[in-house]
């Protein structure tokens, strides 16, 4: 089962290595990982999507909490969260195909970020499944390159995770 875990950490050098190392040495699977600074510049937020049963999730949370640089850890159920990933996809695109691809971009609310004689680069920020569909739609044109971030997540409504 997939779990989304938010980890607030001290914004020090080496903290990400400690968190990633913990997952590696205890054989926890990471699907995606995203890290960035929070409103407080001394605090970073790591969002991890991990795979595992309830026992594994409990151990992940407890072991993360033991790291001295970890300030707060929480896992969320899917319904609590608003999640986003960012993807940049460079697709083959002849001048004749431009209109089709622009219409796909419109339907999916993707942005046309770059264009060349024979390619087009589209940008989409959305939740994981939508990005998957987007990729499927573009595949027939010939995808040259995909660059994708890990999932970031924030609680829906007024609740927030702060230190």
């Amino acid at each position, binding site marked *: 089962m997939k779990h989304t875990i938010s980890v607030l950490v001290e914004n020090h050098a080496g903290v990400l290595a400690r968190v990633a*190392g913990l997952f590696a040495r205890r054989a926890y699977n990471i699907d995606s990982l995203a890290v960035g600074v929070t409103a407080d510049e001394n605090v970073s937020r790591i969002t991890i999507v991990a795979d595992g049963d309830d026992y594994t999730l409990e151990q992940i949370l407890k072991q993360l909490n033991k790291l*001295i640089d970890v300030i707060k850890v929480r896992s969320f159920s899917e319904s609590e969260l608003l999640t986003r990933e960012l993807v940049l996809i460079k697709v083959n695109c002849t001048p004749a195909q431009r209109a089709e691809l622009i219409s796909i971009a419109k339907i999916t609310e993707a942005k046309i970020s770059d264009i060349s004689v024979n390619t087009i680069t589209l940008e989409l920020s959305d939740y994981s499944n939508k990005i998957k569909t987007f990729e499927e739609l573009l595949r027939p044109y010939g995808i040259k390159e995909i660059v994708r971030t890990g999932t970031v997540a924030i609680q829906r409504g007024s609740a927030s995770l702060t230190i």
Partner: protein
Amino acid sequence: MSEKKMTVAKAMVECLKAEGVKHVFGYPGAAICPFYDELISSDIEHILVRHEVNGGHAASGYARVTGKAGVCIATSGPGALNLITAIATAYMDSIPIVAITGQVNSDQIGRDVFQEADITGSAEPFVKHSYIVKDPASICDTIKKAFYIAETGRPGPVLIDVPMDVQLMETEFMYPDKVEIRSYKPTTEGNKLQIKRVADAIAKSSRPVICAGGGVFLSDAREELAALAHKCDIPVVNTMMGISNMDMTDRLYFGMIGMHGVKPANYAVSHCDLLILLGARMGDRAVVALRNLSGISVIHIDIDPAEIGKNVNVNTPVVGDIKKILVQLTETVPELKHTEWTDELDEVRSRKTAVPDAKPGTVCPKLFVQELNRQIPKDSIIVADVGQNQIWTANNICLTEGRFMTAGGMGTMGYSLPAAIGAKKALPERTVIAMCGDGSLQMQFMELATAVQHGINVKLIVFVNTTLGMVRELQDKLYEKREIAVDLTGSPAFDVIAEAYGIKAENVTDISQAEGAIKNMLSSEKPYLLQVFVDKEERTII
């Protein structure tokens, strides 16, 4: 405290003094020389070990008997890397040590210069926390935090890596009185409702047992454990790390559980209706005894919430400091009697297995340890190494007020002598005996020089059977007696080795010599080695 300008190296020494450190165990090298240069003018005694790993083990032995963090020092690169096994050993056993390493100059880090190793990176899986000091102004705060983190909560090793150029920089010395780490606040008070639940479970149980681990030592809760056991008439068993946390002659004490445990202890945990795990990690070697927990209510009391439910399913968890929880619990529970249950366990305990006569020229290790029990002072410290020697010692030693210690979690060969040196340095008035095999002795006998040089009166008992007995037992049992790489032929005569170090040694080839040899060893004011010859067919699991 007023601020004073000095080098970081001097500040490091001043910080150690402010922490009350009297002894450090180490091995110098170029990158840590600025620190050593300042150590000269301090009253901290430096014990020069003969290999860095043993500095770590000595600090660990020191910490085990004092409860205060032991300090070890090494230089950059290979010196620091040699410490890792000792750091990992301390981590597995939750022992507070502060390891200080020199690092290459900060502007050279990452360029693969001479004796450079990423020690904080390499040691990361085995430390409670680590620091690399780049800002000279942070040194005092860092050392204060290192001791605090090492000694509080679930104790463990903390590493401080200091580049050589930083050691030479100027800073203001101001040792903080207090530590504030917003992300580190270990729970010490047990939840009252949970404690009430435990008390209710005890009151309801007719066959309770306490399995006490190393956490009882870490929490200094020996008396509190005995108080609860006596008030509620609850039998006590140990994990290996917990041995001697209860008077081993107490009628309620039934020995060590697990793969290498004793029958009454394993019987107790498999026939109880309530199992109270107390500061015990329940490692895989101990869990063997708990294969079938159906119908048993399990309570787990530990300061580390991550240990609860990790290896054993638990009905009632209590997180906090064992000493505090035991006090509260003992106040809450009624006085109880479990005569039927303790009689049943007494009966199991009374089943004696006959000890066969040892082959001529050899000694039965069990009988030897029993003779040792008759002679050692009540408060002796016994340090067992790893292998058959460890199990023979663990299952036969009988301590009332003394302390048994071993590298239970990591099973690190070569641990006993350096750890004994550390323990003896901390408590010089106590008798400290390292027990090892001829395999493990050859991983550590360079430390005989440390004992001689620093006048540390440790005793060493080596069981000699010219084989790696524990591995051989495994090969005999699981690999159809296909033995490989367990024959230690070519090993030296250890009495001659000891004498080369100026240490008196005696050989014991027959149990009749044990009494006299032990007497001579204990009455000597100097290090002493007993070479006890054991038949290689002697087993640990009977």
